[in-house]
């Protein structure tokens, strides 16, 4: 076993051939680690384990699928936190297995693109708007950043909430998902409170993450009835390259292409 650290995070490999972590994730993904963790002392503020009723690879897909966020998650789309009509993009590492999905702050006051969408309900209002009270901590207007590292690691910043996720298979159809929430050691009390409020979007009971916790189980139950069948939907072709839109499955394909190279399947 070889281990290495990146901004205090410990990564390990059983292979003699795995390159240095900086080369494994590539320069663009590395830059997003630097954005959140570079030069900052972090402080863990909570951790949880969530049991998912599905194969671990479905969760690996979920974290890389930048297309589903504003379609599945009513909270994201309704409150304009994450819509595909906002700016942003997707980065895929040279080896395919790592990715970054970024969403910029909304610019249009009235966004017509999502009118009539099932994931949008204009009648829903929040009584306590402090849940949306975001403060930009970086000069790039990125409000939502999901970083994945092959095979089972996620680093995220959603509004002002920051978390690390990693997941391990517990059975073919069971996955343990661990969340570690963190802030910066020099947070003001106001910022720490803001992070705690924004954390209500993530985690096992999160306004957004709750749906990710069960949707894999829907797929698992669905495919159980069709063991001998196969179907492939190639949305936008077969490429695994970075794109200036999140309406793409390139990072999902990148994951599978690296997984196939490693397993030989």
């Amino acid at each position, binding site marked *: 076993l070889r281990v290495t650290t990146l901004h205090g995070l410990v990564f390990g490999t059983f292979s003699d051939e795995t390159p240095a972590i900086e080369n494994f994730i590539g320069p663009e993904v590395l830059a997003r680690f630097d954005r959140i963790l570079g030069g900052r002392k972090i402080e863990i503020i909570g951790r949880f384990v969530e049991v998912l009723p599905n194969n671990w690879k479905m969760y690996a897909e979920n974290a890389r699928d930048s297309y589903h966020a504003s379609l599945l998650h009513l909270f994201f789309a309704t409150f304009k936190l994450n819509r595909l009509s906002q700016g942003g993009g997707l980065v895929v590492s040279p080896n395919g297995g790592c990715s970054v999905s970024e969403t910029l702050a909304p610019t249009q006051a009235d966004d017509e693109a999502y009118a009539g969408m099932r994931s949008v309900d204009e009648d829903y209002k929040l009584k306590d708007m402090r849940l949306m009270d975001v403060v930009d901590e970086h000069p790039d207007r990125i409000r939502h950043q999901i970083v994945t590292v092959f095979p089972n690691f996620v680093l995220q910043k959603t509004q002002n909430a920051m978390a690390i996720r990693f997941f391990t298979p517990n059975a073919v159809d069971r996955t343990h998902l661990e969340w570690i929430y963190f802030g910066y050691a020099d947070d003001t009390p106001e910022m*720490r409170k803001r992070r705690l409020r924004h954390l209500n979007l993530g985690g096992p009971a999160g306004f957004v993450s709750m749906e990710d916790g069960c949707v894999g189980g829907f797929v698992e139950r669905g495919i159980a009835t069709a063991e001998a069948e196969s179907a492939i939907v190639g949305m936008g072709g077969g490429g695994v390259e970075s794109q200036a839109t999140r309406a793409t499955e390139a990072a999902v394909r990148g994951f599978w292409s690296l997984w196939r190279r490693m397993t030989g399947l």
Partner: protein
Amino acid sequence: MSILLRVAELNAAYAATIDTDRLESWPDFFVEDCLYKITSADNHKRGHSAGVV
């Protein structure tokens, strides 16, 4: 009635309201000015401030 029983009764009534789809009555379980927090024994022991909610 002991506090434990009263809390158990409150929890049961709260869950029954959700289970029987009386969602309009659910906010009545909260007072206007409150802090609603759910955490785990592990986080509490470690002194971590983040809860599940």
